[in-house]
C-alpha cells in the first residue's frame, strides 16, 4: 500500500515540479507573483523587485493544487488515512522541491559565472533570476522554495482533512453547484413572473447606465464585446439552432462593413448616406449574400455549407484586397472616413452637454444589440426556432413532420448573415475605417468560438461566450505575453468542466392543462 502511494505521489510530485520549472522558464512565475503583489499591497511592483514572499506563494499554490488533486483521486468510499495522506504530501513536496531546486542551482551557477541564460531562454533576464534567487543567495533560495512546497502540500492536506472530518467533502464545491437549487431562482420566477420581468428591466437599466461610468478603455472593449455578441447571436441561429456549420461567417461581416463604408465614406463614391439608411442597406446586402450562399446547399445534407462559406469568405477577402476592385473598395488601403451618426440633440437637452463620441457610439451599439437580442429570443422560442432545432436533431424526420427543410435552411442563413452585416456596419462606423486585413479567417473562428464556448443554441450562453472570447483576454492584459497561454488553459478547463458550453440551453416549460377528448376530436378533423 505504502509502495503504491509512494510511486503515485512521486509521479504527482514530478508533475508539480515540471509545472514549476515550466512556469519559471517562461517567466510566468514572476509575472503571477507580480500580479499577486499588486493585488495585495495595491502598490506597483517592479519586475526585478518582487518580494520573494509572493514568488513563494505562487510556488506553494501550484504544489497545493497538485496535492489536493492527488488526495481527491481516491473515490468516495476509499479515503486516504491521515498518515497515508501525510506521507503522500511529504513525497510530493520533496520531489517537486528537488526539481525546482535543481533548476535554481543551474540558473544560479550560470548567474554566478556571469553567463547570460537568455541565449537559451528568451524570457529569463538576469534581473528576474536575481529576484528569484535572493540576489544569488542560492542556498537561501533552495531552502525557501523547499519550505514553500512543503507548506503548500501541508495546507492542502490540512484542508482536505478538515473537510473530511466535518464529513462534508468539498462542501464549497457542492454548495456552489447547488446554489441555484437552494435559492430556487427558477421556482421564484415561475411563481411570480413579475419578479423576472422586474429583474430583467433592472438589468437593462444598469446596462444602459454603464457607459456613463466606465473609462474610455472599457468603453472600447465593451463595444467590441457587444459587436461580437451581435455576431454570435446571428451565428447561433445558423450553427446552434439550425445545425448548419458555417466556417466563413466573416464574409457577411465584411459585406456589411464594406457596404456601409462605401455608402457613407466621401471616397470612392461620395454618397455619404444617412447612418440608419446605410445600416439597413448593409443588413440587406449581407442578407442577399447569405441567400446566394444558401441557394446551392438548400437541398444538400451534411456539412457542405461549411465548405461553401469557407470558400465564400476567402473570395470576399481576396476580392476586397485585389487591385481589380481597388477602384471600388480601395484595395489594400481600405475605406477611410466612414460616416458616423449625428448625435440627436435630445442628449444635450438632458445632460446639459452632448455625450462624448465614444459613449454615444456605445449607446448605439447597445441599441442595435438589444434589437438583435429581442429578435433572437423571439425567433428561438417560436415555430421557426423549433423547426430549426428539429432540423438540427434529425433533418429527415423533421422534413417528414412537415418542416420545409430547404426554405428553413436558407431562412436561417439569410437572417444570420443579415445580423452579421449589421454588426459589420457598426464595426466599420465605429472605427471610421475598414480594410481587408480586418476580415481574416480568425474572425470566423472567434465568432464560432463565441457560440461553442457559451453553449450551442443558448442565447445567454452566446453573450457569455462573447464576453469570454473577446473580453477575457483584455482582463488578462496584466499577464502580458502569457495572457494567450492562460486564456487557452482557461478555455480547456471550461470545456472539460462544461462540455455542452458554459450556459447550455434549457428547455422552456410550455405545458398547460389538457382539455377533454371531445375538443381533440374536433381539433383533429382533417
Amino acid at each position: 500500500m505504502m509502495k503504491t502511494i509512494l510511486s503515485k505521489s512521486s509521479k504527482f510530485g514530478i508533475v508539480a515540479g515540471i509545472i514549476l520549472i515550466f512556469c519559471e522558464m517562461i517567466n510566468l512565475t514572476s509575472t503571477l507573483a507580480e500580479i499577486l503583489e499588486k493585488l495585495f499591497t495595491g502598490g506597483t511592483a517592479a519586475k526585478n523587485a518582487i518580494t520573494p514572499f509572493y514568488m513563494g506563494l505562487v510556488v506553494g499554490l501550484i504544489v497545493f493544487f497538485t496535492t489536493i488533486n492527488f488526495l481527491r483521486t481516491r473515490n468516495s468510499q476509499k479515503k486516504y488515512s491521515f498518515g497515508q495522506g501525510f506521507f503522500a504530501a511529504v513525497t510530493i513536496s520533496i520531489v517537486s522541491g528537488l526539481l525546482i531546486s535543481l533548476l535554481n542551482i543551474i540558473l544560479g551557477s550560470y548567474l554566478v559565472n556571469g553567463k547570460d541564460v537568455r541565449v537559451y531562454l528568451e524570457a529569463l533576464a538576469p534581473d528576474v533570476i536575481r529576484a528569484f534567487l535572493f540576489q544569488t543567495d542560492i542556498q537561501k533560495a533552495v531552502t525557501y522554495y523547499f519550505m514553500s512546497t512543503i507548506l503548500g502540500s501541508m495546507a492542502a492536506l490540512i484542508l482536505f482533512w478538515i473537510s473530511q472530518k466535518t464529513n462534508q467533502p468539498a462542501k464549497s464545491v457542492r454548495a456552489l453547484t447547488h446554489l441555484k437549487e437552494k435559492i430556487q431562482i427558477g421556482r421564484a420566477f415561475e411563481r411570480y413572473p413579475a419578479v423576472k420581468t422586474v429583474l430583467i428591466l433592472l438589468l437593462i437599466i444598469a446596462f444602459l447606465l454603464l457607459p456613463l461610468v466606465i473609462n474610455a478603455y472599457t468603453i472600447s472593449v465593451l463595444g467590441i464585446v457587444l459587436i461580437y455578441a451581435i455576431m454570435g447571436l446571428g451565428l447561433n441561429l445558423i450553427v446552434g439552432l439550425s445545425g448548419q456549420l458555417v466556417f466563413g461567417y466573416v464574409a457577411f461581416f465584411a459585406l456589411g462593413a464594406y457596404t456601409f463604408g462605401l455608402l457613407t465614406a466621401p471616397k470612392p463614391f461620395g454618397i455619404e448616406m444617412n447612418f440608419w439608411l446605410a445600416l439597413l442597406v448593409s443588413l440587406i446586402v449581407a442578407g442577399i449574400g447569405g441567400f446566394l450562399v444558401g441557394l446551392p446547399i438548400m437541398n444538400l445534407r451534411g456539412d457542405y455549407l461549411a465548405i461553401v462559406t469557407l470558400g465564400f469568405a476567402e473570395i470576399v477577402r481576396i476580392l476586397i484586397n485585389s487591385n481589380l476592385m481597388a477602384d471600388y473598395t480601395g484595395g489594400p488601403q481600405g475605406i477611410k472616413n466612414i460616416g458616423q451618426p449625428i448625435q440627436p440633440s435630445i442628449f444635450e437637452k438632458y445632460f446639459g452637454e452632448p455625450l462624448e463620441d465614444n459613449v454615444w457610439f456605445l449607446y448605439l451599439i447597445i441599441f442595435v444589440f438589444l434589437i438583435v437580442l429581442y429578435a433572437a429570443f423571439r425567433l428561438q422560442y417560436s415555430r421557426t426556432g423549433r423547426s430549426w432545432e428539429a432540423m438540427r436533431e434529425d433533418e429527415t424526420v423533421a422534413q417528414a413532420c412537415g418542416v420545409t427543410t430547404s426554405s428553413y435552411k436558407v431562412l436561417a442563413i439569410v437572417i444570420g448573415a443579415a445580423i452579421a452585416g449589421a454588426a459589420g456596419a457598426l464595426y466599420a462606423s465605429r472605427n471610421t475605417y475598414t480594410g481587408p486585413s480586418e476580415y481574416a479567417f480568425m474572425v470566423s473562428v472567434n465568432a464560432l468560438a463565441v457560440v461553442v464556448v457559451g453553449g450551442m443554441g443558448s442565447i445567454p450562453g452566446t453573450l457569455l461566450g462573447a464576453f469570454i472570447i473577446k473580453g477575457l483576454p483584455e482582463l488578462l492584459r496584466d499577464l502580458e505575453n502569457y495572457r494567450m497561454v492562460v486564456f487557452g488553459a482557461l478555455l480547456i478547463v471550461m470545456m472539460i468542466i462544461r462540455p455542452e458550453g458554459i450556459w447550455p440551453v434549457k428547455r422552456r416549460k410550455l405545458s398547460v392543462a389538457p382539455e377533454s377528448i371531445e375538443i381533440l376530436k374536433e381539433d383533429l378533423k382533417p
Partner: protein
Amino acid sequence: MTKKPSYVLEAENITINFGGLTAVNDVSLQVPFESIISIIGPNGAGKTTFFNCISGFYACDNGTVFFQERPINGIPTDEIANLGISRTYQNIRLFTNMSVIENVLIGQQPRLRSTCIDTLFQTFRNRREEKQSIQKACNLLDFVGLGAYADDVANNLPYGAQRRLEIARALGNNPHLLLLDEPCAGMNPHETSAMIELINTLRSQLKITIVLIEHDMKVVMNISDSILVLDHGEKIAQGTPDEIQSNQKVIEAYLGSGTENLVEKYSRRKADKGNLD
C-alpha cells in the same frame, strides 16, 4: 361537390429496385376509410421499403400511389405530411434534445400558418396560434398518456413512452392516414396490450385510418381488419386474420416448405377448440 373517394390510400403495382435487388415487386394495396391494415412478413420482406415509398422517403420505380385519389409519387416528404399522412419509425426517431411537448409542436408544423415576420413582431395571429398549438399538443399528450411528461426532455423518456410520443407527434398534423412501423417492437406484454388499446382508440375515437407493420402476431391478429403478407418483396397473401392464419403460402414463408401437416393440425385444433366452447 366532389364525391368522397372510396379509399384513403391506393397503391398500384409498386416496384422498388435497389440496384439489382428488387425490394418490392408489383405490390398493390387498397386501404378503406377507418380501417386498420397490417403488413407482415419475414425479415427483409420489403415491408419498411413499401412504407417508405408511401410516405415519400423513396420514389418507386414503377406503379403509383394514390392518396385520396391524388397521385403522390415523387412528392417531397414535407408535402406528403401536409396532405395528411403521418408515420412513426421502426427505430424510434424523436428530436431527442427537445422537450416532449416541443416534439408534438413540430408535428403540427403543416397546420401552422404564422411566418417568421409574425414571430418577430409578435402579431395577434402568432400569439393566438402559439396558444392554440400548445393547447392541442397538451391534449394530444394527455390522449396518449404522456401528459405528466410534457416538459421533460424526450431523450429521458422510458422506451414505451418514446413510442407513444412518436404517435402523438404523428397525430399533430391531423392525419387521415397513420403509418406505424412496428409500434410494439421490444415491448413487454403489458405495454403491448396498452398499445393495442391506444391504436384501437385512435380509430374508434379519432377516426384515423391506420396501416401498421408488426411482428407480434398477437397484435396483428387482434386489431387488423385486413392483413397483407409480403415475402421477398412480393405480395403472397391478403385477407382477414382468419384467412391468413390458415394460408398455406404464409405458413411456408414463415416456417419453410413441407408444412402441410402443420396446417392440417392447426385447423383441426382450431375446430376442436370451437367444439369445446
